[in-house]
C-alpha cells in the first residue's frame, strides 16, 4: 500500500519560501541567505516529487486523489483543495521542480547584485507554488487558482525591471492578452459545469468530469463550444495564434525567468490542460481539428519570424512559440503522449538554450560594463567567436541546438519525430499537417544554427575595447547548463519508438491517462500507412541537415550572402523582420478601437449618466443620514418612546393585516 498523503508538501515548500522571502527578504538583505532559502524551497519539493514519482512508478493503481480539506460546499457542489497524482501530473511536477531547481540555482549567479534580489526569489517561489497547484489540482477551480497565479507571477517577473518603460509595457501586454484567454477558460468551464449539471452532475473535479463526460453527446455543440473555449484559454497561456504576441515581448524579464516561465513550464500549461481533459477533447473532433491547424500554423508562422531576428532572446522566444505549436499539433491529432513527450524534452533543451543565452548575455553585459560601453548585449551582430571564450556554455548550447533541430539520437529528435509521424498517420491527422510541420522543422534547424554560427563561430565582432573582458560564467551558472545539456542529450531515450527497436516506455507510462479516450473515440495511427514511417523519418532528418547546411553557407562560408539576399528580397525581409506586422494589425484592430469605444463610453455615458446616478444616490443617502441623526438625540425617554412606538406599529400591522 502506497501513501501519497504528503503530496501537499510539494507546493507547500515554495509557498513557505515565498512567504519568508517576501515578508522578511528586505530585512535579511544578504543575497546568499535569500538565494539559499529560495533554492532550497524548490529543491525540497523536488525531493518530495521524486519520492512521489518513483512511488507511482512502482504502483499498480495509477490514479490517486488526496483531499487536503474542503474549500467550500454549496448545495450539492463540493469543492475541495485536493491533489490529483497520476502519470501526467507526476511527470509535470518532476519537470517543474527539477528544471525549477536548476533555474533557481542559476539565478543565484545571474541575478547577483540586482536591486530587489529578494523580490525576485519571492516571485520565483510564488510562481513555482502556483504552477504546482495548476498541475496538481484535482479540480478545475484549484487549477484555475494556479492558472491565475502563474499569470500574476509572469506579469510581476516580466515587469521586474519596472523602471524600464518597455518592461512595464511588456508586462501589461502579457497580462491583458492572457486575460482574453482566461475569459475563454472560464466560459468553457461554466459551459461544461452547466452542461453536466443538466444531467445532475454538479462538479469541477477532473475524475468526475471524465467519468460523466459520456452523458454529453460526442461531437455535439456543447462539447465543441466548451472545448473551443478551453482552447482559447490555452492559446493565451501557451502563446498560440492569435494570442501569441505577448511572449516575444515577455523577453524583457530576466533571462532565467524566460527559461523557467516562458519556455519550460508556464507556457506549457495549455498543453497540460488539454492533456488533463483529453477525454473531453477527444469527444470533439472539430475542436481537435482547430487545435491541430492552429498548432501547425503557429509552428511555421513563428519559425518564419525567427529566421530574421537579431536579438538572441527573441529568436529563442519565437522558437518557443513555434515548438509550442508542435505540441498543440500533437494534441490536435490525438497524439497526447507525444505532445507531453515534446513538452518534456522541450523543457530540457529550451531551458538550456535560454540559460545559455543568459550566460552569453551575462558575459557580454559584464564586458561592456568593464569597458564602459552601452552596446546592446543581446544583439547577435555584436557577438561571434564566443565558442573559445565560453567553452562550457558553447558545448551545452550546441547540444541543445542539435536536439531542437531534430538530429537523431538527441531528445528533440524522438519527440518531434513522433509528433510528425502522428500528424501524418493519425486518424485525426493528414499529410498537409505533416508537411507544415516538416517545413517548420527545416526552418527550426536553420534559425537555430544561424544563431549558433552568429554567436559562437566566426570572428568576434564585439567592440575591441570590450573584447577581452568576455569570460566564461561562474560554476553556479554553468552547472545548471551542464545538467540541462545532459538531459537534452539523453532525455529522449525514455521514448524511443518501437520502430527503432525501443520500448517507448514514456508512452506506456502515460497510457493510463490517455489510452481510454483514444480507444473509445478511435484515435490511433493508421496501419495502412506504417510503410511510410521510415521514409518520413529520413525526410525529417534530411530537411534538418538542409537547414543546417544553408545556415552554414550563409553565416560561415559566405557571410556577405545574407546581405545580398536581403537586398534582393527586401519586401519579404521587411515583413518577417517586423513580425508580419501582426502587432500593428492588433493595435489598429483591437487596441485603438477599444480605446475609442472607451472614450465614447466615458464622455458619452459614464460622466452624464452613471456619475449622475451615483452622485444623486449619494446625495440622497447623505441627506437621509442627516435626518436620521436628529432622531438620535441622546434623550433616554425618547429612546424608550421609539421602542414603544415601534412595538405599537408592529402589533398594529399584525392586527390589521
Amino acid at each position, binding site marked *: 500500500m502506497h501513501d501519497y498523503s504528503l503530496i501537499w508538501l510539494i507546493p507547500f515548500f515554495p509557498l513557505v519560501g515565498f512567504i519568508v522571502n517576501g515578508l522578511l527578504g528586505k530585512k535579511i538583505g544578504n543575497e546568499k541567505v535569500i538565494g539559499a532559502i529560495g533554492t532550497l524551497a524548490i529543491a525540497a519539493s523536488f525531493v518530495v516529487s521524486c519520492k512521489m514519482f518513483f512511488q507511482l512508478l512502482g504502483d499498480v493503481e495509477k490514479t490517486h486523489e488526496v483531499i487536503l*480539506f*474542503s*474549500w*467550500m*460546499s*454549496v*448545495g450539492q457542489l463540493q*469543492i*475541495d*483543495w485536493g491533489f490529483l497524482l497520476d502519470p501526467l501530473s507526476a511527470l509535470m511536477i518532476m519537470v517543474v521542480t527539477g528544471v525549477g531547481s536548476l533555474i533557481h540555482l542559476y539565478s543565484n549567479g545571474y541575478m547577483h547584485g540586482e536591486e530587489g534580489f529578494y523580490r525576485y526569489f519571492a516571485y520565483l517561489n510564488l510562481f513555482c507554488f502556483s504552477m504546482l497547484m495548476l498541475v496538481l489540482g484535482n479540480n478545475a477551480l484549484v487549477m484555475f487558482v494556479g492558472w491565475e497565479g502563474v499569470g500574476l507571477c509572469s506579469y510581476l517577473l516580466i515587469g521586474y525591471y519596472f523602471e524600464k518603460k518597455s518592461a512595464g509595457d511588456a508586462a501589461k501586454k502579457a497580462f491583458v492578452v492572457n486575460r482574453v484567454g482566461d475569459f475563454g477558460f472560464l466560459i468553457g468551464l461554466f459551459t461544461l459545469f452547466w452542461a453536466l449539471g443538466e444531467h445532475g452532475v454538479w462538479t469541477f473535479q477532473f475524475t468526475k468530469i471524465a467519468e460523466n463526460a459520456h452523458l454529453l453527446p460526442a461531437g455535439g455543440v456543447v462539447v465543441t463550444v466548451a472545448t473551443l473555449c478551453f482552447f482559447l484559454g490555452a492559446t493565451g497561456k501557451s502563446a498560440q495564434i492569435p494570442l501569441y504576441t505577448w511572449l516575444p515581448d515577455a523577453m524583457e524579464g530576466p533571462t532565467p525567468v524566460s527559461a523557467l516561465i516562458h519556455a519550460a513550464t508556464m507556457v506549457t500549461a495549455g498543453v497540460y490542460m488539454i492533456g488533463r481533459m483529453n477525454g473531453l477533447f477527444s469527444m470533439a473532433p472539430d475542436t481537435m481539428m482547430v487545435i491541430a491547424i492552429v498548432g501547425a500554423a503557429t509552428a511555421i508562422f513563428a519559425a518564419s519570424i525567427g529566421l530574421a531576428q537579431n536579438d538572441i532572446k527573441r529568436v529563442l522566444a519565437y522558437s518557443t512559440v513555434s515548438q509550442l505549436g508542435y505540441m498543440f499539433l500533437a494534441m490536435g491529432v490525438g497524439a497526447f503522449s507525444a505532445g507531453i513527450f515534446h513538452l518534456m524534452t522541450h523543457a530540457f533543451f529550451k531551458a538550456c538554450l535560454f540559460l545559455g543565452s543568459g550566460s552569453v548575455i551575462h558575459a557580454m553585459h559584464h564586458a561592456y560594463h568593464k569597458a564602459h560601453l552601452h552596446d546592446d548585449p543581446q544583439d547577435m551582430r555584436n557577438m561571434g567567436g564566443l565558442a573559445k571564450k565560453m567553452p562550457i556554455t558553447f558545448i551545452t548550447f550546441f547540444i541543445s541546438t542539435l536536439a531542437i533541430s531534430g538530429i537523431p539520437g538527441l531528445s528533440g529528435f524522438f519527440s518531434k519525430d513522433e509528433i510528425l509521424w502522428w500528424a501524418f498517420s493519425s486518424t485525426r491527422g493528414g499529410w498537409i499537417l505533416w508537411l507544415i510541420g516538416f517545413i517548420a522543422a527545416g526552418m527550426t534547424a536553420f534559425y537555430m544554427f544561424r544563431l549558433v554560427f552568429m554567436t559562437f563561430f566566426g570572428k568576434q565582432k564585439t567592440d575591441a575595447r570590450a573584447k577581452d573582458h568576455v569570460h566564461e560564467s561562474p560554476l553556479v551558472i554553468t552547472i545548471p547548463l551542464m545538467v540541462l545539456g545532459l538531459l537534452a542529450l539523453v532525455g529522449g531515450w525514455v521514448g524511443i519508438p518501437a520502430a527503432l527497436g525501443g520500448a517507448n516506455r514514456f508512452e506506456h507510462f502515460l497510457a493510463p491517462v490517455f489510452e481510454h479516450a483514444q480507444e473509445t473515440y478511435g484515435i490511433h495511427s493508421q496501419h495502412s500507412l506504417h510503410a511510410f514511417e521510415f521514409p518520413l523519418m529520413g525526410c525529417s532528418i534530411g530537411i534538418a541537415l538542409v537547414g543546417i547546411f544553408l545556415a552554414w553557407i550563409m553565416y560561415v562560408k559566405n557571410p556577405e550572402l545574407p546581405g545580398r539576399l536581403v537586398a534582393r528580397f527586401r519586401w519579404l525581409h521587411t515583413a518577417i523582420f517586423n513580425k508580419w506586422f501582426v502587432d500593428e494589425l492588433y493595435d489598429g484592430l483591437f487596441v485603438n478601437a477599444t480605446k475609442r469605444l472607451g472614450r465614447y463610453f466615458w464622455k458619452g455615458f459614464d460622466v452624464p449618466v452613471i456619475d449622475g446616478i451615483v452622485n444623486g444616490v*449619494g446625495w440622497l*443617502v*447623505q441627506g*437621509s*443620514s*442627516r435626518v*436620521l*441623526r436628529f*432622531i*438620535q438625540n*441622546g434623550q*433616554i425617554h*425618547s*429612546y*424608550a418612546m*421609539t*421602542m414603544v*412606538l*415601534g*412595538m405599537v406599529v*408592529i*402589533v398594529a400591522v*399584525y*392586527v390589521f393585516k
Partner: protein
Amino acid sequence: MENLVQLAMQNVNFAAIMPSLVLCCFGMAILLINVFMPRGKTTSASLISIIALLVTAVVSLQGWNNPQFGFAGHVALDNFATFFNMTFLLAAGLTILMSDDYLRREGYPIGEYYPLILFSTAGAMWMASGTDLMTIFLGLEVLSISLYILAGMFRHQLQSNEAGLKYFLLGAFSTGFLLYGIALLYGVAGTTNVADIGLYLSAHPAMIGNPMTVAGMLLMSIGFLFKIAAAPFHMWTPDVYQGAPTPVTAFMSAGPKAAAFAALMRIFILGLAGLQSEWTSLLWGLAILTMIIGNVTAIYQTNLKRMLAYSSIAHAGYALVGLVAANAVGVSGILFYMLAYTFMNLGAFAVLVLAGKKGEENLTLEGFSGFGFKRPFLGVAMTIFLLSLMGIPPTAGFAGKFYIFAGAIKSGYIWLAIIGVLNSAVSLYYYLRVIVYMYFKDPQEDYSWVSMHTGAVVSIVIAIVGVLYLGIIPGKIMEMAKLAIF
C-alpha cells in the same frame, strides 16, 4: 423528603451545564484572589481568565456530537450550544487579551472587570443552551447585569456613566416586554419548555392564529431584538457603544448579540415553527429597516466607535436575513456569520484600543490621518478587518454574507438579498473612508503614544488569522455550522 431529593437528582446532569459551571467557579475564584492582590495589579487576573476560557472551551467541546440534556429539559449542551459557546469564548478571550493595558492606561485597573466578563459569558452560554424560556431568561439577566456594570465601570467619566445607565434603563424596559411575552406564551401552551411549546402548537393548530400567541411571540421577540440591536430597538446602541470602555464595547458587539441570536433561533425554530410565516414577515421588515438605518446613519459618523456601533446595527440586519431565509444554508450561515463577525469586529476594536490616547478623544476619522504609514502593522490589520466588514473576498465577511444571502435566495427572498447587497455597497463608503484617511491623508501626528502591548497584538493576530482562514477556507467551519443546527 428523601424521595423528593431523589426525584430532583434524577434529572441532574452536570455535564450539560459543565462549561458555565467551570466558568463561574473560575470567576468567583478570581474575585477571591483579587481581594489579596494589591490594587492595580490585574495582570494575573487576566491570565487566569484566559486559562479559564481555555479550560471552558475544552469542557464545552465534550458536547460536540455528544449532546447532554438535563435538569428536566431546561438545559442542553448540543452541537448548537457548543458552536455558540466557542463564539462567546472567543469573544471573551479577545476582549480580555486587549483589556489589561487598556484598563491601566485609562486609570481603572480594576480586578473585578475579568470576573464580570466571565459571568456575562456564562450568561451567554445559558442563553445558547437553554431549552426552557426561564433558563434563557436567566441567562439573559446574568449576561445583562454584568454588562450594565461593565459599561459604566469608568466611574469618573460621564460618558461611561451615561452608557451604563442608559443601557440599564432601556435594558430593563425591554426585559419587561420579554417577560410579558413569555407569560403570554405560557398562558397559551401551559409550559415554558421550548420543545413542549412547539409540540403543543402542532397539536393545537387553532392556537397558532390566536392573538395571544402572536402577541406573545412579538413581545418576546422585542426583548431579543433589543439585545441584537435591531431597529427600531437599536437606539441605545450608539450612545452605549461610544461611552463604554472600548474592550467592553467590543465584547458587547459580538458576545451578547450572538447569544440573543442563539436564543431567538432556538425559540423560533424549535418552539414557534408553527408561526413561521408570522415571524418571517416580522423579521423580513425589521431586517431591511435595520440594514438601512445602520448603514445610512453610519455614513455621517466621525467618531470611529460610534461608526462601528452603527455598523454593528447593520450587521445585525444582515444576520437577520439568514433567519428570514430559515433554511439550512441561511441558519447555519448565521452561526458562521456570528463567528466571522466576532473575529473582524473584535479585531477592529483591538486596533482602536491600541490607537487611542487616554480618554480616547482621538478615535475620530481625522485622528487616523496617515496612520497606515506611521503604524504599518496596525494599518494593515485595520484594513483587513474593514475589508472583511465590507464583505470583500477573501475575508470572513464575504463568506458569511455569501452564505446568508445564498440562503435568502434559496428560500425565494430575492429582493431581500438584493437590498442586503445594496446595503453592503452603501457600507463601502464609511468603511473605505477610514482606509482613505489612514493611507491618503498626510499624518498630523507621529502616533508615538501607540505602544504595541502584547495582549492586544496577540488578539489582533488571532483575529487576522481567523478572518483570513474563514475567508479562504470557509468550507470546514461551514460544515460544522451545518451540523450544529437543528
